[in-house]
């Protein structure tokens, strides 16, 4: 076979495969199972994410809201932006979500509500801030699943979130305020005594959050790991690591060679050691913020010796924090980053 023929066959195969994948009809159920069910539940019952099958939620939001939410996510509030899905795939997921509630959802126009922002702010402070936060930052514990002690089935959404504001039209927010959301702590504010005019004012106040949310935080880039060279021997450095951990109120839970369990007993590389430690109070705080923090666990420093050079290294919590899209967790990772840095410094002094 000539080179030219081989090349054309290769090119043709690539185009055929690309074309087939572009024209294949996406399976919404399968896509939902892969991308959404871990957080929202296999049947939309909720968990880390909101219960999508809740009838009041289904009727209260538009397909456009669901589509934009999938596309934009909720920056800093767990829900990631699924920018890698095609339009057809997003549509198929939305269709699957809709299959849980027969009937048609509300349709809202994009008409702007021009209420009194100042008055809306006063009502918001009295009636909304307790759940949605003083500045619309939302309830705490967005990432908490039902596997942990939890008071409410739904954590109050962050109304100041740019993803929410870009997805929800004014009339959708107004309808939620007027009717409430059965099955959640969100009550009908008409029944609570507010007038339609008051509600319009609150909507305008919520919309005013856009001014601040438009300012995008530029996320700092972090290196994946922290590492210091130790002037001491491997044994001395390990002893120093343990001392530093205990000094920071951690309990040493295990020492293990890096390849232990993967090689026959006695064949481990003695120049690569991991020291695991834990502070259960800190761990409990972290799990209350995001149950997926297991990926940080247990805390560990790795001590290696290569050509006589001893090094202590750890993950960089600030780097890993970026995986979770959870602002609350970011704060804890700052704390953990400081702890790791101090410990590595202390043990390599």
């Amino acid at each position, binding site marked *: 076979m000539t080179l030219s023929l081989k090349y054309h066959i290769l090119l043709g195969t690539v185009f055929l495969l690309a074309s087939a994948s572009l024209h294949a009809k996406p399976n919404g159920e399968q896509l939902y199972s892969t991308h959404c069910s871990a957080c929202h539940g296999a049947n939309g019952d909720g968990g880390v994410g909101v219960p999508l099958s809740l009838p009041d939620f289904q009727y209260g939001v538009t397909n456009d809201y669901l589509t934009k939410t999938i596309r934009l996510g909720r920056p800093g509030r767990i829900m990631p932006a699924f920018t890698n899905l095609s339009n057809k795939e997003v549509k198929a997921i939305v269709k699957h979500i809709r299959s849980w509630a027969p009937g048609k959802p509300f349709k809202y126009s994009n008409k702007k509500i021009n209420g009194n922002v100042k008055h809306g702010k006063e009502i918001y402070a009295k009636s909304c801030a307790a759940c949605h936060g003083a500045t619309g930052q939302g309830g705490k514990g967005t990432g908490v699943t039902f596997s942990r002690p939890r008071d409410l089935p739904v954590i109050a959404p962050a109304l100041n979130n740019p993803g929410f504001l870009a997805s929800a039209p004014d009339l959708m927010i107004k309808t939620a305020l007027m009717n409430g959301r059965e099955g959640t702590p969100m009550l009908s504010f008409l029944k609570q005594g507010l007038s339609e005019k008051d509600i319009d004012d609150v909507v305008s106040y919520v919309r005013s959050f856009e001014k601040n949310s438009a300012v995008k935080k530029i996320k700092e880039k972090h290196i994946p790991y922290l*590492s210091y060279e130790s002037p001491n021997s491997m044994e001395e450095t390990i002893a120093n690591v343990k001392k530093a951990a205990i000094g920071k109120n951690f309990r040493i839970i295990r020492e293990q060679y890096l390849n232990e369990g993967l090689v026959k007993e006695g064949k481990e590389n003695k120049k690569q050691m991991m020291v695991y430690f834990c502070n259960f109070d800190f*761990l409990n705080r972290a799990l209350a913020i995001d149950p997926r923090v297991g990926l940080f666990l247990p805390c560990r420093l790795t001590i290696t010796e290569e050509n006589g050079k001893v090094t202590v290294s750890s993950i960089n919590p600030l780097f890993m924090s970026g995986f979770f899209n959870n602002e609350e967790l970011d704060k804890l990772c700052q704390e953990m980053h400081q702890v790791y840095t101090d410990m590595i410094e202390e043990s390599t002094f």
Partner: protein
Amino acid sequence: MKYKNLTKVLISLTLFLFISASQAEQLLMARTNQGFPEAMLKLQETLSEFKYSLSRVQRIDIGLTASGYQTDKYRIVFFGTEKEIAHLSKKYPHLLPYIPWKIAIFAEQQDTLLVSANPMQLSDKKYPDADKYLVKWKKDIEQIFQILRESE
């Protein structure tokens, strides 16, 4: 010569597109409707089918409940292969604190959730040779999670 260059471009483009797509999701997650003990067993079996060895399993819930906190079942499963760990730990310092790779597995009511970081997040321009391992791990974890999702 012309074809060789074009083939190179084509392959590079395909790899670039694959790596870009691979990096999109930062966490890999799955839900299985199996209860925790069954899911844990299935995970261990599946890792073994994919030729990974278990380095160890860390029980998170035991320490928490012993300290007076409420929690459901929660474990961290560390896994890898002897060859990969030996090679990567020597050649790629940025990977050292992350290996053996791990999967967090925990109960949520009747279901079980699995979470792993997307290995492609550790892709580093300074160490392009490491990408083939990261791509393989990502693909394997996705397949393992799919098997768990489909297990009843």
